[in-house]
């Protein structure tokens, strides 16, 4: 992987994590004695990790789908199902994040 790819990936991680981290370090009026910031951190990590994972999966499945569809347009419907499965990975992270935030 070249420097351009690594810096691009790092930038994506920072862009996803920065707002949540900023929120996490804010003084939060919670009842559990300051532990809420870890909850925010966990929710942010869940969303960030699953989004990056889904991004990689959609990239791979999408590229393969494009290759297959360009040769056989009739497989477009089936290819979309696999794209949906890859996209679903992001939703798992979002659900976990919502569950964490609901506990704070």
């Amino acid at each position, binding site marked *: 992987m070249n420097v351009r790819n690594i810096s691009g990936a790092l930038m994506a991680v920072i862009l996803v994590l920065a707002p949540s981290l900023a929120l996490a370090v804010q003084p939060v009026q919670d009842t559990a004695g300051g532990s809420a910031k870890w909850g925010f951190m966990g929710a942010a990590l869940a969303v960030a990790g699953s989004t990056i994972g889904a991004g990689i999966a959609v990239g791979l499945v999408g590229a393969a789908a494009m*290759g297959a569809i*360009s040769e056989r347009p009739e*497989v477009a419907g089936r290819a979309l199902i696999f794209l949906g499965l890859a996209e679903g990975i992001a939703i798992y992270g979002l659900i976990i994040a919502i569950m964490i935030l609901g506990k704070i």
Partner: protein
Amino acid sequence: MLRAAIKYSYVNAKTRTMHSKRLRPSDWHVIEDVKDSQGFIQYLATTFYGPWISPLIQNRKVGPLSFETRIFKSLFHDYHKIHHGLSSQTSKELILALFSRFEGENLKIVLRAIFSGLKKTDVAHLLYPVEEFSKMRLEGLWTQKGIKGIVKLLETTPFGPLLHHALPQFEAQGRLFPLEMAIDISCYRRIATTTEALRGEKDRKEAKKILGSFIDMLNISHIARLRFIYGLSPEEALNYSYPGGNKLHLKELHAIAKAGSPASMLKLLPEPLKTIAKAWEQQDLATIRIGLEEWVLGEIRRAFLGNPFHLGVPIAHLLGKELEIRCLVRLYQAKIQKMSRPATEIVPSLFLKGGEQIVQAS
């Protein structure tokens, strides 16, 4: 692995989809059973070869060459697509090197035509339709009056150095054979060099394995033909062998070139070829060639099993399709000449029976 998946997800899916459109055993059985060449073309027009073959249905007086050039166009279309789909420059170079064999064939036809005083129009129907993908233009060659001028004009092309080297032999012998061999050898040297230059370890290993098996097949049939049909000495036959084999390197090639007969040559082959070749010992060279094609097809199909993210998959598809087209051309010629030979003597049985199960079992 992730890096390889990113690199090959598009081209691998595209290649496998192209591969899935190739002829099935049921198609082979139908074209094996059709009575004449017209029925052959009519059925083939219903397969994915249709767009290239259909125009021949209207033209009832079709020669085998017209069929050959048309059907090869579908292979060149695949070369174009795979070259376009690959991201790495070194991989693209290897695809171009593989394709240069067809440019070399065209160049040989031009050389033969000019050597025999024929015009472009006399041989135009013999040329492979490489225009879609090839950057080499042959038009300039037709203005040359002699072979020397052509060799000079080709100096800057990949064929140049070896053609220049073979020119004194051509002048001494007064025949095109050394120049033709120089063209072939420069193609295979280019393939060997570009394979070595591949960056990924897995790519290099898989490409060497598949191309090496293909080159082994060519070297065995080539040495046998030069030795036992054209009567060349072992040293000369060895001199005209191609580099980059998988099982047969210089030592093995030297041993088989020194064999006194095709049967004794087969006994000198390394394993696993030696075991496979036991079935061919009493056969003629044409049947041995079909047996070798069968072995190469097995190697090609192995490339489609296991980890799919490597350059071996597109190369395997291109070589597999080339063998399929060559078999179709052979079968078509047999139909034209109304030959009664069974298809198993013309086409490898992996095509006729379907081969995935056989490969997985081995």
